[in-house]
């Protein structure tokens, strides 16, 4: 290759791939999923909650889509994201209406402490169930929006 001009050599060797992105995605995506679960569980008495947890989960899945392409990720994660929106809304409504069973107003929440054998005492709140509904709704709507925008072009060839 020593006798070629610089542009010719550049044209031969230059083939765009995203090897670094794929290698780092397989690491970062799972860190993001763990961080999303942490944000979802820490929601009711520190920063976090269902909304941010859903956003971080959708960021992780969008990172997978950016690295591996649409067809591959559709095979890996065969989830209908439109179906997650009504599931999340039904969970949120049932959590709110569950307070009628105890004769208190709509969306009343409470908490209690549970003793675990090795871990100690943990605090469980019913606001986390409502956060779960928010989580599914935000996850479904965000990925539906981004994939709809990304796939609006028709296949030419």
């Amino acid at each position: 290759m020593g006798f070629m001009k610089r542009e010719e050599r550049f044209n031969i060797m230059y083939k765009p791939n995203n090897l670094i992105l794929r290698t780092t995605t397989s690491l970062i995506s799972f860190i993001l999923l763990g961080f999303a679960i942490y944000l979802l569980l820490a929601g009711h008495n520190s920063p976090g909650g269902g909304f941010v947890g859903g956003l971080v989960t959708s960021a992780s899945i969008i990172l997978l889509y950016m690295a591996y392409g649409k067809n591959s990720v559709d095979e890996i994660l065969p989830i209908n994201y439109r179906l997650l929106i009504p599931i999340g809304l039904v969970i949120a409504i049932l959590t709110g209406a569950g307070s009628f069973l105890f004769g208190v107003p709509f969306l009343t929440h409470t908490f209690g402490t549970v003793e675990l054998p090795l871990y100690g005492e943990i605090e469980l709140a019913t606001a986390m169930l409502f956060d779960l509904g928010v989580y599914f709704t935000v996850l479904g709507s965000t990925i539906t929006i981004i994939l709809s925008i990304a796939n609006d072009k028709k296949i030419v060839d």
Partner: protein
Amino acid sequence: MTNDILILTENILDSVTILCLVGISISLILLVYRVLSGPTNADRAVALDAIGINLVAVAAFVSVILVTTKLNDAILLIAILSFLGTVAIAKYLEKGVIIDRDMD
């Protein structure tokens, strides 16, 4: 004597934090100018990445001023979203599409 030294270091910490916050604010204004009038799109991409890093620094200094650790999750979240945005812009500049159909 030791009490005086402690008060002195506390004052130094406060003033240095305010000074750094002012410097990062000036840097943010200059970076917004670079985003608005960058000659090429690569300049805008680099400026947006630097804006993300400066936002992390602003959140860290605010958490120093407010003496709290509740902002650590927000700092991590800003860094993650800034990384995702930089990846998306870089892929758009290089290949023209952000989410392509197939693995090439």
